[in-house]
């Protein structure tokens, strides 16, 4: 921790003020999210009977495991300063493809890798278009979204139930401990989160993601593999969406072209509420986890309230988005 001004360099216009607080400043948004999460949880516990049951909390994970995985991929993309609008459609496509193939008695051992490959390929293709042809991510992934949704409708017009043994066992399997349980999907999601957090903090590709989000131009001149990294994050996001789709199909036991409508918004909202800047370069994966939990908690509270219609979820998410954005704004402004 440096508080004094070292001798050799005396003129540091930017550095002289508020230096001591700087290192923590990037953690503040995440801490704020954590605090609000605790507050919301406290309000829930205070107002609703049975809310304090640990299982309520675990159920948030169970219900949102797929969103968590999708949001992880979105975090990578947003950290580079990009955006991926195709995630919801890729999730839906994954469920539809999986359900269709399983319905034709393909073995799960083939279907599972295949759908993951499809998702990754779509991401890869979008990444290539974005990088090589300099199409804005917003537009390229929008096209990806149209494409994936269109393929869904082409394959099937309505929902297809999944009856495959592996799938149903994955759907029903519960890990129990001390009277509580979680689904296998939660375990998968947590593993994904841990791997992703490690990659972002401790590997070259992870740091390159931050560098590109900070200043892509500089990153290129510093000799970083900008193209490869940028394409990779979309491929990662595509993979995460496909995996999220698999988890959703475990959860719903069906493939439906109408699944995951607007999921991209939830994922983006979770990332933003988690304190990651949409302009890229700043944010943490842990924040995204908190963001997903916040969204899940809203759902839970509205369910507990019982008298509220479903559209209140949207209004509350909008309101919270507003509150978090405002808060982050105030925090960064004060720290400056």
């Amino acid at each position, binding site marked *: 921790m440096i508080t004094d001004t070292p001798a050799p360099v005396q003129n540091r216009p*930017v550095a002289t003020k508020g230096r001591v607080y700087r290192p923590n400043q990037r953690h503040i948004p995440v801490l704020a999210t954590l605090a609000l999460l605790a507050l919301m949880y406290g309000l829930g516990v205070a107002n609703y009977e049975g809310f304090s049951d640990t299982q309520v909390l675990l159920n948030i994970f169970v219900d949102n495991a797929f969103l968590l995985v999708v949001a992880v991929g979105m975090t990578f993309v947003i950290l580079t300063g990009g955006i991926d609008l195709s995630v919801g459609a890729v999730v839906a496509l994954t469920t539809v493809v999986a359900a269709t193939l399983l319905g034709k008695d393909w073995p799960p051992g083939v279907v599972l890798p295949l759908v993951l490959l499809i998702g990754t390929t779509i991401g890869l293709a979008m990444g290539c278009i974005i990088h090589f042809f300099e199409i804005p991510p917003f537009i390229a992934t929008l096209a990806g979204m149209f494409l994936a949704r269109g393929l869904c409708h082409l394959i099937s017009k309505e929902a297809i139930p999944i009856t495959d043994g592996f799938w149903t066992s994955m759907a029903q399997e519960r890990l129990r401990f001390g009277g509580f349980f979680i689904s296998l999907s939660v375990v998968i999601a947590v593993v994904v989160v841990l791997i992703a957090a490690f990659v972002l903090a*401790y590997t070259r590709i992870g740091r390159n993601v*931050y560098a590109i989000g900070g200043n892509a131009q500089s990153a290129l001149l510093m000799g970083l593999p900008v193209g490869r990294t940028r394409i990779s994050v979309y491929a990662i996001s595509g993979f995460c969406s496909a995996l999220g789709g698999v988890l959703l199909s475990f959860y719903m036991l069906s493939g439906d072209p109408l699944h995951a409508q607007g999921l991209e918004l939830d994922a983006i909202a979770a990332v933003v509420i988690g304190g990651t800047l949409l302009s890229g370069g700043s944010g943490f994966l842990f924040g995204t986890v908190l963001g997903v939990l916040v969204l899940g908690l809203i759902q839970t509270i509205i369910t507990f309230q019982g008298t509220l219609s479903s559209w209140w979820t949207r209004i509350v998410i909008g309101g919270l988005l507003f509150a978090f954005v405002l808060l982050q704004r105030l925090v960064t402004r004060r720290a400056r």
Partner: protein
Amino acid sequence: MGQPVPVLEMTGIGKTFPGVVALDDVDFRLLPGEVHALMGENGAGKSTLIKVLTGVYSNDAGEVRLAGEPVRFTGPLQAQRAGVSTVYQEVNLCPNLSVAENIFIGREPRRFGKIQWSRMRKRSAELLRRLDLDIDVSAPLSTYSLAVQQMVAIARAVDVSVKVLVLDEPTSSLDTSEVDQLFRVIRRLSDDGVAILFVSHFLDQVYEIADRMTVLRNGRRIGEYRTAELPQMDLVSKMIGKELETLEQLEERTGRTHDRARDAPVVIQAEGLGRVGAIEPFDLTIHEGEVVGLAGLLGSGRTELARLLFGADRADHGGVQIGGRPVTLRGPRTAMRHRIAFSSENRRAEGLVEDLSVRENIVLALQASRGWLRPISRRRQEELADKYIKALHIRPADPERPVRNLSGGNQQKVLLARWLITEPRLLIVDEPTRGIDVGAKAEIQRLLAELSGGGMAVLFISAELEEVLRVSHTVAVLRDRRLIQQIDNDADLDADRVMQAIASGGQPA
């Protein structure tokens, strides 16, 4: 002659952009352990040559040989791996990452693929200490000044097993002591056998550090010389390739030739104006027809002072009187209403709108002050643009060309034209000559002298002390964010005395 084998040899390099031949059959060679200056005006092709060398651009013709082997880099990373590192004029680092990461990213110390953060921090602290820089390497780069960022960039370039180090205008944002520090590092590297390609607009620096130089003009090589054998005058004439008239004007101290403007009416008077963390409260009076120069090291508060006078930043102390009446400068618009103009040091980010045409950039401030409901007619716009393109010799003389495609000097002239058409009473120019070529520099200095001769008050800021002395009637000396002294620019004021004033903090020695 027994010349040593060049570490780098570029022969017959050609590069064409749409409509522009940037390089035409250029030869260039670099010997191990030498400091070689690449000289030329803006648009001469220096940057293009460097970008070809480092693989940012691919050359259309010619060959690059490194240590005798033909190479063709596809990008900076490849070039770096082969031992060619570059530090650019603009700091090309990532502001959101820590200092340590900026030095090591792309080649972080790893074990089993996992980045070893503590080792990285330790090694970067050591590296920076070798450059006499002792800072917290875990803090984000954005918390440090430009000068420190530049040193970090050099640390990054030096750390690799470097054969050729390209320094593209590395000193443009450094103050004197930092330049000395940099030169020490350069000498040490060249002693170690590193070949250094050095680009700078500061002739004195080039003569201080370079062993040899190659001069480019209009994308062609003019020649290769030993620094010791080429007088400065000859160099400049080779660079600009026209008669030395402009250069002589450069030598002349326009500021001193004017009569004192002390009795003229006061244009602006600041009393106790200041802003916490930017500049301590100061008093400053500027008269009609007077040029006040600000002298001081980088970070002494020059720009900050100017920004307060324009209302670009809000003052939290003191006040301003304009034409004898107190005025609260709420923002640029208030200042403009009182006919104050401010041309920022940061041309690209705060000056011009690069997408817009020369014409649109020129009329922008005038149009903004009129409001959108009172448009300047297209014909009037064209008249204004043509008039100032002619008056300021803006090249190319095409009002519809996007400003992005102009060279630095011409961009600066466009920015000046923007403010001149608003007919300001006070023109604040912050580093109007930074990074532009000798010819344009002289033109801008002459222009400022003319304007003040016509009654305009000018606040002139430059990092080059000689230039401040050349242009100003009065020199205001700044140090550590304080205005410490105002000196009349009379016959016996020279750079040494100003330097003394800065060094002594304004106390009579």
